[in-house]
């Protein structure tokens, strides 16, 4: 070329390498090519205002990601070769991995599918490309998690059928319905839900606790995955922030819609995180920090600063955040005492915390633990010691929206169960909270569809009428191996053998099946 203009700067060059490949269609109508972009009511005036949250061309992407994968798989190989599972702090830790593989990993796959979809739905090419990169990243996480846990699956129970369980097991409908909710929404709500609320606001309370837990408990495979995924997560977070700012800047009519989504997804996320709270406080033999501390740092402080920043767009902090803030003193304890009672129907074990652990909780929860929760554990421990390990054989009532059993208490009164109900088109629906009830009222036509595991069992849709058949046949939970109390479980016995505390006995696993049945009627 003879005449030369000014050399492109990095930003413009990246735009030429991405969105400039797009064009204004003339043979097909834009609304036919992008039919899903407008039904949510979000108004986009000018997609060219989209700021690319990161500038990564495919050649660089392949190069960086391949380097990361090479290192990661070298560690996986070394971990398996050296039986790294024997170096963890305690076998109770593996239960956190069981929760992760069945509760979180399937979400990574759903995210891959969801981002592939929105990676096509937007008419803004810059946004599409950013979403597609997240799609393939999420596929990465879904797959590397299978590989990270593969070795654990060979030596511990409860990890063997994650995707199957995710589709069926009662408590796994909490994460599943969360992601189904996002994926069935329009593209802008999907990004507000997952990129903003989930990845940006709450990731330090979901992904990070599992990875820090792995680091603290000498789980080299999982923590290496965590470090390897860190730079991907950083990209996902910048996308989350860009999305929200872009939508808000495009049109003032978008503000109330986004506010409603932030309210909804904050609460949906918070309810999902209740599972993480019990993981942090109860499932980690070596604890990273308490749930209450994590909530203070990552939500109250960081989230507070974020919402201060968003104030100029007319966005206020999520509705009911006061309830969530107050709940930090109770959440993990209420969850664990519930799961303790329903271990016959979970793919992980539960147990009574040790004396030292209870002292740790008294210290971390000075106003609540000794007052409300320690006495329960003391009672349950006594029952167990006297041969009456407690299992609750009455199925719990689930919230129609978040699908957590209605186990939470009212703000300001930890002795009063929080419960709401409404009638909608002749049917009665139950909720764990005012917030979930609000979400229902906004979109009843959506939430009446919910596949509630307990209802489904009672309606006979789960291959059996009694819990044992459902658990064994429908859930694929191996009775006496995957479920029940940790103490005396096959995992526990194998761990004692590994640590030289007990001889290995042939037929141990077999014996469990007959011995460890719930005592409760």
């Amino acid at each position: 070329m003879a005449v030369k203009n000014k050399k492109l700067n990095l930003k413009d060059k990246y735009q030429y390498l991405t969105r400039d490949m797009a064009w204004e269609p003339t043979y097909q109508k834009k609304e036919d090519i992008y039919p899903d972009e407008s039904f949510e009511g979000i108004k986009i005036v000018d997609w060219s205002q989209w700021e690319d949250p990161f500038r990564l061309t495919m050649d660089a992407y392949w190069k960086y990601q391949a380097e990361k994968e090479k290192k990661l798989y070298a560690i996986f190989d070394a971990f398996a070769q050296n039986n790294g599972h024997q170096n963890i702090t305690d076998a109770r830790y593996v239960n956190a991995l069981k929760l992760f593989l069945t509760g979180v990993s399937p979400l990574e796959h759903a995210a891959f599918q969801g981002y592939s979809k929105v990676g096509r739905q937007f008419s803004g090419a810059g946004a599409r490309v950013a979403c597609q990169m997240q799609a393939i990243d999420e596929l990465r996480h879904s797959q590397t998690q299978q590989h990270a846990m593969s070795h654990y699956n060979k030596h511990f129970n409860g990890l063997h059928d994650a995707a199957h369980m995710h589709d069926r097991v009662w408590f796994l409908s909490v994460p599943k319905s969360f992601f189904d909710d996002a994926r069935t929404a329009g593209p802008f709500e999907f990004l507000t839900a997952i990129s903003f609320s989930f990845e940006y606001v709450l990731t330090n309370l979901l992904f990070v606790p599992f990875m820090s837990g792995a680091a603290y408990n000498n789980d080299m495979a999982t923590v290496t995955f965590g470090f390897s995924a860190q730079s991907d997560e950083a990209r996902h977070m910048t996308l989350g922030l860009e999305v929200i700012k872009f939508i808000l800047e495009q049109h003032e009519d978008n503000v109330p819609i986004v506010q409603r989504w932030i309210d909804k997804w904050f609460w949906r996320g918070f309810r999902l995180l209740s599972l993480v709270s019990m993981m942090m406080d109860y499932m980690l033999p070596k604890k990273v920090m308490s749930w209450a501390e994590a909530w203070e740092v990552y939500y109250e402080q960081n989230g507070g600063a974020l919402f201060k920043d968003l104030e100029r767009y007319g966005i206020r902090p999520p509705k009911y955040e006061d309830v969530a803030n107050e709940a930090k003193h109770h959440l993990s304890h209420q969850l664990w005492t519930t799961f303790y009672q329903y271990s016959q129907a979970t793919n992980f074990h539960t147990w009574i915390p040790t004396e030292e652990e209870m002292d740790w909780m008294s210290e971390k929860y000075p106003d609540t633990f000794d007052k409300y929760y320690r006495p329960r554990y003391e009672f349950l421990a006594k029952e167990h010691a006297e041969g009456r390990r407690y299992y609750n054989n009455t199925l719990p009532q689930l919230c129609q929206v978040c699908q957590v059993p209605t186990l939470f208490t009212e703000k300001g009164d930890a002795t009063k169960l929080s419960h709401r109900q409404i009638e909608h088109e002749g049917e009665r629906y139950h909720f764990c909270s005012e917030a979930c009830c609000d979400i229902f009222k906004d979109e009843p036509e959506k939430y009446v569809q919910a596949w509630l595991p307990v209802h489904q069992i009672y309606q006979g849709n789960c291959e059996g009428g009694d819990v044992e058949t459902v658990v064994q046949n429908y859930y694929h939970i191996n009775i006496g191996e995957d479920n029940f109390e940790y103490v005396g479980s096959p995992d526990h016995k194998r761990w004692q053998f590994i640590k030289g505390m007990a001889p290995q006995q042939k037929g141990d696993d077999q014996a469990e099946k007959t011995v460890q049945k719930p005592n409760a009627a």
Partner: protein
Amino acid sequence: MSIEIKTDSVEPIRQTYSHIARRFGEKPASRYQEASYDLEAKVNFHYRPQWDSRYELNDERRTAIRMEDWYAVSDPRQFYYGAYVGNRAKMQESAETSYSFCDKRNLLGRLPEETQKQILRLMVPLRHVELGANMNNSKIAGDATATTVSQMHIYQAMDRLGIGQYLSRVALMMDGTTGKALDESKGYWMDDELWQPMRKLVEDSLVVDDWFELTLLQNVLLDGMMFPLVYHRMDAWFAEQGAEDISMLTEFMRDWQKESLRWINAMMKAVAGESEANRELLQQWIDHWEPRAYDALKPIAEASTGLDALDEVRAELNTRLKKFGLQSTGVSA
């Protein structure tokens, strides 16, 4: 003599995940298997999609093609994410060497203006076709159910973005990274008669709803003629014009196409081989789209290689289709 390091062996209680064992037996599984089979949600979806309430999430009815088990389609390259990026990293490394060499020696800048213009008019506009392919494959990755199928399409989507970026860099190299050449090239895409049938075809592909129809149209029919025509025939034609250096910059595309044929053929074999009904449907789609793909490439062939080259690649595609019990009607037997 061999050395033997003693390790404390621990008997595993199982060899692999239950869902993998159900398919392949209770034995150690490959990384590809553990990463690719039965990971997606299959039943008990909670809500219907607001963007298309006809079907549920992960609903196999999003295509009219019926498979007893979509996992019958798998990847002969055994690409899970790690294997995929590892492979592409190597390919991009050698591409990078060529692009740097070309840039340093200003090989494109030394071509006659007329040849440069031909590159901008005949080859660089394909970056827009690549973006269309990127969008189509992303849609397919979002609609397909089995992970073995959906992952191949997201790789394909990202590959097409990458190829579009390589084509863009050809123009940036010619104009000294000002964007001027890309603007010129985009002008051809939008307004030059030569490109309009192709642009119409790409826009039409963007409204195809059935994802398997779309993968057939995009990855089998259009690519099946476009890649051999452009990156082999037109490449030779450019060489005749004294522009053989451009070959260095399209090596990636040739290697890529050769490799991607493997999974595309495997997919077609499995899907066409499944049932007569599938084959009939595929044939209907071929009858509809193959002539249009041919027509879209016609002006480009006429302006460069001549029509014979296009007829030859069309015949090659027909040979491929015949292996699946299909044929392109445009080719006389």
